[in-house]
C-alpha cells in the first residue's frame, strides 16, 4: 500500500509556519535596531569579534555632506597600527573622521567582498595598508571559516577559477555557512553574539566584570627568541607564490579600479614590518610585490606609499613581525595624520581629484566633535 499522506495534506503545520514567520519578523526588528548592534559592539573583543565590530562601524557611519570620511582598511595590521582616537582628534580639526576597518586576516579577497559595502558609505579617502605577505600567503581553513563575515557571492567565480571545485567542495561547510549568513545576520555573527550575551549576563549578575577592551589585542613585545625561532622555521619560505597569489592580485586590481572609478581617493601604504621580517622570505617576493603595486598605482591612479616613503621603524617599535606596539603606533599615526593634513611632500598628492584636507580652500571652520570620533574607535 502506497503511503497516502501527500494527497491528504489537510492539516497545515500552523505552529511551524507561525514560528518561522515570527522568527523572521523578530530577527528583522532586532537587526535593524541600533541598540542591538551597540550591545554586541560593547561586549565584543578585537580579533575574535572583528566581523561584528566592522558591521557595527559600517552601520554607524554617517554620510553627512560636510564631513569628510577616511576609511582605514586591511588586516589586523590596520587595527593595531593606528591610534584612532589621536587621528580623529587631529583630523577632527579639519572636519574629517577616520574609521578603522581593519579586520583579522583580511586579504584582497575580503576587500573585494567588502568593496560594495565600503563604497555605499561614500568615503572620501580609503587607505589600504598591507605588505608582501598579504599577497603571498595561503588562504587556509581559518580564512575560509572567517569568510562568512564578509561574504559576497561575487567571489564564487574567482574561487572556482583559482581554487577549483575540489577545494570548494572541501570547504563546502564554510561556503554554506557564508551563504546562510547572507540571509541571517544573527546566524552570521552568532559566535560573537553568543559571547556578547554571555559576557553581558555574567557582568550584570556580577559573576565576571566586563570592561570594554582596548582596540588592540597585542600588548607585549615578543622576545628575541620568538623572532629567531620563526625565521628558522620559515627557512626563507614563509611567504611565496601560492595558488592564491594570482587571485589576490586580480581581486586587488578590481577593488582598486572600482574604488578609484567611484571618485574615492585610494592610498595604498606598505604596512611597517619588523626589520627581521625580510628574513622570512626571499627578496624576489618584495621585488615582485613592489613592482606589482607600483604598476597598478600608475595604471589605476592611486597613491602608493612604499616602505621607503615611511618613517623608519626600529625593532623596539614592534610587537611581532607585522604589528606595531604603542610607540610604533604613535609614530605611524602621526605620519598618517601629516600626510592627510597636507604636509606630504609627494607630488602625486595634489594631482588627485579629491585631495581632501590638503586643500586649504575646502577646509571647514566647523569642528567635528571629539565624541563622534571616539564613538567609532579602533574596533573592526
Amino acid at each position: 500500500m502506497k503511503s497516502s499522506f501527500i494527497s491528504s495534506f489537510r492539516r497545515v503545520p500552523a505552529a511551524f509556519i507561525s514560528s518561522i514567520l515570527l522568527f523572521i519578523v523578530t530577527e528583522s526588528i532586532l537587526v535593524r535596531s541600533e541598540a542591538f548592534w551597540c550591545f554586541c559592539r560593547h561586549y565584543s573583543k578585537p580579533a575574535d569579534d572583528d566581523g561584528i565590530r566592522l558591521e557595527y562601524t559600517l552601520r554607524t557611519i554617517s554620510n553627512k555632506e560636510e564631513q569628510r570620511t577616511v576609511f582605514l582598511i586591511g588586516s589586523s595590521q590596520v587595527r593595531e597600527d593606528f591610534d584612532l582616537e589621536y587621528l580623529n582628534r587631529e583630523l577632527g580639526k579639519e572636519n574629517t573622521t577616520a574609521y578603522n576597518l581593519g579586520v583579522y586576516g583580511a586579504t584582497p579577497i575580503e576587500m573585494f567582498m567588502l568593496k560594495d559595502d565600503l563604497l555605499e558609505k561614500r568615503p572620501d579617502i580609503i587607505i589600504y595598508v598591507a605588505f608582501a605577505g598579504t599577497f603571498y600567503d595561503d588562504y587556509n581553513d581559518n580564512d575560509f571559516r572567517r569568510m562568512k563575515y564578509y561574504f559576497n557571492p561575487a567571489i564564487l567565480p574567482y574561487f572556482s577559477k583559482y581554487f577549483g571545485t575540489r577545494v570548494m567542495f572541501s570547504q563546502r561547510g564554510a561556503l554554506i555557512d557564508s551563504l546562510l549568513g547572507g540571509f541571517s545576520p544573527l546566524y552570521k555573527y552568532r559566535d560573537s553574539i553568543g559571547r556578547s550575551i554571555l559576557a553581558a549576563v555574567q557582568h550584570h549578575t556580577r559573576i565576571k566584570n566586563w570592561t570594554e577592551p582596548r582596540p588592540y589585542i597585542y600588548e607585549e613585545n615578543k622576545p628575541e627568541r620568538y623572532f629567531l625561532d620563526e625565521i628558522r622555521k620559515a627557512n626563507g619560505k614563509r611567504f611565496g607564490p601560492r595558488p592564491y597569489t594570482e587571485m589576490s592580485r586580480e581581486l586587488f586590481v578590481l577593488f582598486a579600479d572600482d574604488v578609484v572609478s567611484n571618485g574615492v581617493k585610494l592610498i595604498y601604504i606598505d604596512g611597517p614590518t619588523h626589520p627581521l621580517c625580510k628574513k622570512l622570505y626571499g627578496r624576489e617576493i618584495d621585488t615582485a610585490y613592489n613592482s606589482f603595486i607600483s604598476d597598478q598605482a600608475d595604471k589605476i591612479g592611486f597613491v602608493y606609499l612604499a616602505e621607503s616613503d615611511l618613517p623608519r621603524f626600529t625593532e623596539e617599535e614592534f610587537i611581532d613581525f607585522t604589528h606595531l606596539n604603542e610607540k610604533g603606533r604613535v609614530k605611524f599615526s602621526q605620519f598618517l595624520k601629516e600626510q592627510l593634513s597636507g604636509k606630504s611632500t609627494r607630488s602625486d598628492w595634489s594631482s588627485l581629484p579629491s585631495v581632501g584636507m590638503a586643500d586649504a580652500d575646502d577646509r571647514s571652520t566647523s569642528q567635528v566633535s571629539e565624541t563622534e570620533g571616539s564613538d567609532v574607535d579602533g574596533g573592526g
Partner: protein
Amino acid sequence: MLFNTLQFAVFFIIVYGLYLALKHKWQNRMLLVASYVFYSSWDWRFLFLIIVSTVLDYVCGLKIHGAKDVRKKKLFLFFSVFGNLSILGFFKYFNFFAANFQRLLGDFGLTVQPHFLHIILPVGISFYTFQTMSYTIDIYREKLSPTRKFLDFAVFVAFFPQLVAGPIERAKNLLPQILSPRKVTLSKFYEGCYLIFWGLFMKVYIADNLARIVDPVFAAGPPYKGAVVLISLYAFAFQIFCDFAGYSNIARGLGKCMGFDIMVNFNLPYFATNPRDFWQRWHISLSTWLRDYLYIPLGGSKRGRANTYRNLAMTMLLGGLWHGAGWTFIVWGVYQGTLLVVHRLLAPLLKRIPSPRGILAQKVSFALRVVFFFHLVCIGWLFFRAETMTQAYYMLRSLLTGFGSIHGTAIQTMMFNTVLFTWLLMVVGFAQFWKKDLMVVYRTSAATRAVFYVICYYLLIVFGVSGGEEFIYFQF
C-alpha cells in the same frame, strides 16, 4: 554519518523521497540498502559483521523454530548467542582482557607479552548484537515466530534510525512493522518532525555545549576542586542525558516519519527517587533487555533474597561492562548494582516511614528525594565519565575532602553556563512530568508551540554547536 550533520539531512531527504514513492516490498529493500549505506559511512569494512550477525541469527531462528528436539533448539540458541557474543567480545573486549591478564600475571611475578591487536570498535556493535540475540532468544522461548523473509529480517537488524545507538528494539515490536505495510499519516509525520527537532536541540544546544564545560575538567589532572567536580558532574548528567535521549528522539522521529513506532528509551529519568525507578526510566531498551535476558534467566527475584541481590549485582556489572571495556564502566555497573541491592534491603524500612501530610509537604518530600537520588546518580556518572580509576578516585576524594569554596569566577561561570544550557530542558521536563506526557509540548496550542520553536531557533542559532559532534553512545 551523524544525525546532526548536513550530510545526513541530504541522505534522509533522498531516502524519504524514495520511501514515499515506493510500495511496501521495495520500501523495505530500499531501507536495507540505505541502512547499509548509512553504516558504511562509518566504516564499510564492518558491514561484513552486520551481515554475518544477520545471517547467523536468521538461520538460527529458523532452526530453533523448526527443531523438534529441545537439545537441538538449545544448540542453535547457543550458536546464536555464542556467535554474537564472540563478535562483541573480540572487537570490544579483546585488548582489555589481554591487558588485564598481563597485569594480573605481572602481580604474580610472571612476565607475559600478550599480542595486542589494533582493533577498531565497530560503531553500534553493542546495540545490534543485543538486538539480534533478542530475536533468537524470543523464538526459543516461543514468544515469537521466525520470519522467512531474509531481506526484511536484515532490515530489522540494520534499520538505520536505531542502528548505531539504539533503542535496542525487540523483534516482536519492530519486525511486524517491517513485515507489514506501514501507513504514513500526516500526524505521524508532524510528530516525527517534532521529535527530530527536539532531539537535535537536545544534542546541538544542550549536550554539545555542556561538553565544553565537562571536558576540560576531566582532561585535567589532579588536584581537583570538589566544587568544580560537582558542577561538572551536574553538567555531565544533563550532557549524557541530552546526548543519548536526543539521539533516541531523533531515531524515533525518523521512524515515525516512515510510519514506524520505535520504543521510548527515556522517561524523565532524573525524576526518579530510587534506583529501581531510575532503571525503569533510563535507557529503557537496555534495562529491559538485561531484565528479560539476564536477570530473569538467572532467577530474578524468585529464589530468595540472597539470590536476588546476587542477580541484581551480576546484571548491573555486566550492564556496566556492556558500556565499555574499562574498569570505570565496571565500577559504575557495580555501583548501580549496589544501589539496587541497598534499595531492596532498605525498602521495608522505608515503607514504614509515614508519608508527610499535606500536599505541599508531600511535594517537598518528593523534591528532596529526587534531588538526593540525583546526587547518587551523579556519583555514578563520575565513574562513567572518568578517564581512569585513578582520576575517579581523586575526583571522589575532592568531593569529600577538598570541596573548596563555590565563590570564584571560574566556578560561577561554570554554574551559570550549566544553567544557561539546561533551563529550557528543565522547563520542558517539568511540563512533561506535570502532565505525565513526554509529548506535552507537541500537544500544546499552536501559539505556545510557535513561541517555543522561536525560542529554540534563537538558542540554536546563537549557541548551537555546529561542529557535528559525535554522540557519546557511539563509543559503545
